[in-house]
């Protein structure tokens, strides 16, 4: 396959704008958070643990953060980036993708953008993915104030000890689309004011063991972005 080269660069900005002659797309187009977990600083996170757990980098290709619960049923470990920095608005699309795996399906895993809260499995606001223990079925959830609006869609299935990428896209109008491994799996549409989170959210993920065994969530990467345009 041949490669198309733009030796002079390419831009998303008008020539009269500050980044108009920058040789890459305007870096201010989006608020972007991305973490490939080549590094991990615990102090960057609000970590809620039931039992004991010390999230840490683990050896493996791609940069991996390992989160292992302790071994009582219901023990859990959740990480939320300190502090909240994503809000949702009409007119401003947003994106999220994460690649991860869980050691077995006797777990409940959550990943996405959520309000900072000690109960990420049942949080009041966010756009996120929640797995079902035993089956690994994944649900995409869009939730505002828990009771004001909470919509969900079946997204796919986790396979034990197998990496998968879950992603969502808010189109800035009325629809959140969900993907697993680059394939569209479902969507939620409606009046934005009725279901779009209205609280500042943050990157959030974690795992709860649903049996008396330690369980591990391994996270390869997380990307979250929101248009500034």
């Amino acid at each position, binding site marked *: 396959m041949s490669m198309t080269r733009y030796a002079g660069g390419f831009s998303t900005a008008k020539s009269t704008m500050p980044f108009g002659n920058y040789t890459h797309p305007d870096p201010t187009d989006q608020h972007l958070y991305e973490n490939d977990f080549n590094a991990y600083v615990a102090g960057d996170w609000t970590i809620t643990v039931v039992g004991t757990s010390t999230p840490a980098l683990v050896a493996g290709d791609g940069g991996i953060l390992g989160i292992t619960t302790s071994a009582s049923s219901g*023990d859990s470990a959740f990480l939320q980036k300190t502090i909240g920095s994503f809000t949702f608005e009409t007119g401003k699309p947003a994106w999220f993708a994460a690649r991860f795996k869980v050691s077995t399906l006797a777990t409940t895993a959550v990943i996405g953008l959520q309000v900072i809260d*000690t109960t990420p499995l049942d949080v009041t606001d966010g756009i996120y993915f929640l797995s079902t223990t035993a089956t690994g079925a994944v649900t995409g959830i869009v939730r505002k104030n828990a009771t004001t609006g909470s919509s969900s869609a079946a997204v796919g299935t986790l396979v034990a000890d197998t990496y998968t990428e879950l992603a969502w896209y808010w189109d800035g109008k009325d629809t959140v689309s969900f993907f697993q491994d680059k394939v569209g799996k479902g969507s939620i549409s409606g009046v934005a004011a009725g279901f779009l989170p209205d609280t500042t959210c943050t990157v959030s993920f974690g795992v709860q063991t649903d049996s008396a065994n330690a369980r591990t969530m391994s996270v390869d990467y997380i990307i979250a972005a929101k248009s500034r345009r």
Partner: protein
Amino acid sequence: MLINISDADKSGKRTLTVTDGDTKLYSGPVDNTAAGQKLANVGLKHGWDSDEFKAATKPSAKK
């Protein structure tokens, strides 16, 4: 920040401990995991030195 709810002791009680780096922000018993999560949410929302959190940690507030 680490919000830790310990495993239950022999009496079923758990301990909520909140630390920020080397600084301990709070440590005290809670009746169960849900109570610890609820109490910690008050601290997250209002601050660990707030009147709201202090009120929530009073014994009468746990009833």
